[in-house]
């Protein structure tokens, strides 16, 4: 088995009274894409910040490429590349000027640096815009240069913190392809996201993180095995039904109540229904057998005044896993 490049042991981070990360342990193996999947505020970025030496852990340790955290932070930083969630670039400098600057901070220089800048510019498909100021770029282009700046020194381990937030589908596609290419080229990637599809598409292994805890870890197959033969019914509601859903929940004593975390009690008691949760205008229902449960679920929804426009039947996926483990859906 490949040796781990990163091992985290019981990492914790407290901000005042608030414990953002409540003891997380995991390993990332050399050459894999490891995703940390979890809703916003789950503690993903705090974890990444501790591992990239931005924040000292309140307790716990980690080891990256043989260097300890806390401890040998400079050596750790040399081994890793970081693509921060926000676009951390000098927008009034050109793409090349930015890359030159960041490259030098990773101890690169001269011919080697120039060559490497050309390579990563090609890699992110912005070679022709190298001389333009970053502030003239579109959101997707900025994201790509943001990634390029983290790749320059060919890090053994690349941290990518939600690198696809707020961009168009084409750019996202491009970035996802790029991440896979990086892995195929031998780089290890630690990827955080709250998009289930991204984690499913990219990851060799996934860690599911919620409320500061790592609640599941494994390959996609391993994880979905947790929910066994469960299937998922996804009820798409009409726009106004979303409001109605909230209204139903707001009424005291109403049969359908949605708790603060989004779980829906409307379907409890129906045969074969394991769990239900509301996300935006959808209700996700875990069932043992989709075909058997469908009529009753739709009937109950109609009775409650929720206008169901369509229903998807889905095979077990990470969302189902998350729902199964937390009783809540992943939110976009």
């Amino acid at each position: 088995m490949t040796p781990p490049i990163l091992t985290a042991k019981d990492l914790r981070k407290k901000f005042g009274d608030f414990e953002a990360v409540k003891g997380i342990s995991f390993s990332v193996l050399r050459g894999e894409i490891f995703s940390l999947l979890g809703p916003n505020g789950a503690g993903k970025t705090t974890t990444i910040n501790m591992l990239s030496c931005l924040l000292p852990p309140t307790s716990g340790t980690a080891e990256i490429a043989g260097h300890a955290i806390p401890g040998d932070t400079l050596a750790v930083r040399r081994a890793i590349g970081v693509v921060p969630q926000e676009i951390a670039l000098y927008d009034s400098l050109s793409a090349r000027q930015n890359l030159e600057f960041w490259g030098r901070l990773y101890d690169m220089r001269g011919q080697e640096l120039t060559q490497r800048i050309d390579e990563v510019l090609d890699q992110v498909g912005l070679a022709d815009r190298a001389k333009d100021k970053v502030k003239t770029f579109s959101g997707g282009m900025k994201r790509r240069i943001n990634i390029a700046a983290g790749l320059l020194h060919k890090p053994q381990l690349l941290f990518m913190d939600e690198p696809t937030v707020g961009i168009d589908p084409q750019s996202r596609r491009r970035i996802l392809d790029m991440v896979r290419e990086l892995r195929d080229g031998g780089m290890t990637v630690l990827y955080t996201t709250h998009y289930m599809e991204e984690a499913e598409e990219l990851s060799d292994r996934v860690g599911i993180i919620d409320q500061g805890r790592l609640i599941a870890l494994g390959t996609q197959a391993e994880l979905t095995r947790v929910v066994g033969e469960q299937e998922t019914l996804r009820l798409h509601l009409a726009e106004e039904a979303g409001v109605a859903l909230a209204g139903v929940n707001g009424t005291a004593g109403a049969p359908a109540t949605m708790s603060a975390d989004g779980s829906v009690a409307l379907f409890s008691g129906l045969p074969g229904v394991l769990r239900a949760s509301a996300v935006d205008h959808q209700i996700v229902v875990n069932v043992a057998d989709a075909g058997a449960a469908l009529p009753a679920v739709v009937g109950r929804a109609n009775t409650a005044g929720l206008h169901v426009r369509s229903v998807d039947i889905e095979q077990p996926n990470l969302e189902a896993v998350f729902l199964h483990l937390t009783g809540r859906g992943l939110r976009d």
Partner: protein
Amino acid sequence: MLNKLTAIIRKDTALRFEGRSELLFFLILPLIFTFLIGGGLPAAGGGGDNRLLVPVADEDGSPRSAALLAALADGDVVRPEAMSRAEAEALLADEDAAAALIIPAGFGAALSADGLAAGQEAAVTLLVSPTSNVAPAIEGEVNRAVSALARPLLVARNATEGVAAVRPFADETARAAFFAAALAAAEAEAAPPARVVTEVAAGGNAYDQRAQASAGQLITWVFIPLLGASGLFVYERLMGTLRRLLTTPTRKSTFLLGAIGSQYLAALAQMAILVLFGVLVMRVPWGRDPVALIVVLATFGLAGVALGTALGTFVKTEGQASNLSIMLGMAMALLGGAWWPMELFPAGLQQIVRVLPTTWAMSALTDITMRGQGVADILPEAGVLLAFAAAFFLVGLWRFRYE
């Protein structure tokens, strides 16, 4: 380490001059202000007359009033120009002249033998603008010219009155004859020897508006961008690049050194240009003691960049940084004596402004450009500036956060 430092310095310089408008404050305005406040080009080779214009309304038109005008012109401080009283007053009202001299009709007559004998009083009127700080110098020159004109008359009168006291004259005719002879003798006498010599302390130059402007504007305009450096910290915070810097294998000290170093280098370059401008265009003797000059400018730059760093940990937006730097820079320079000689300040204020680095810098630059002082003499000022630098750096380090 060095590679990283140069990267940071190059990045900061590129960021700073990216908009070109930075050049306005870095170079263009400082040169214009130095030029204007210094009074333009020096009178090189009989080019222009840089003496202070003093409009003179000669309403008397006698040989005596003409002599007064000539005596006034015979100095290197003022340039009298005859015109009507209305014109003179208009110049004064428009602040185009600091003072105007009116020689009223009857001036010559009062100074004639008859006038003197009759005890008539000769008087001139000097109109001065109260807002002007050169008026006292003009007043001194008028005093000098008036005494030169009055001297033979005074000598003759003193002789006549003295003699009358011990050997009274037989009649007025005898007295007048004696006075006329005495006046003729007094006027024939050679000019009296100088009884006061002025030397400038330590062999320096006399006060020079150009030196004051060159030194004062240097302090003002070097200080403003140094304080404005606080804006760069804000920019880095807003862009998120400060956080990203921490994920690279770069020490906090390397980053700070680079950020501060780039400001410092820019300030040194700016000072070099302004000093060269002073030497070549304004003919200010900056180069008398280069070592002393370098020590002062180097320590002043440090104090400024340290203050800018400390300030950068307080300001929240780039707008705040730019407004604050201009206001604070101007105010500190003004109070530090960079715009007017410190002697014009009330005594209490002169003590209070010792808490400003600009005060010490200006004092040291005055030592160098005007007082002719050397390294040993400016060491105290340099020491105080270093102490300012250390104090401000400490505040900056203590308050510095990456976000």
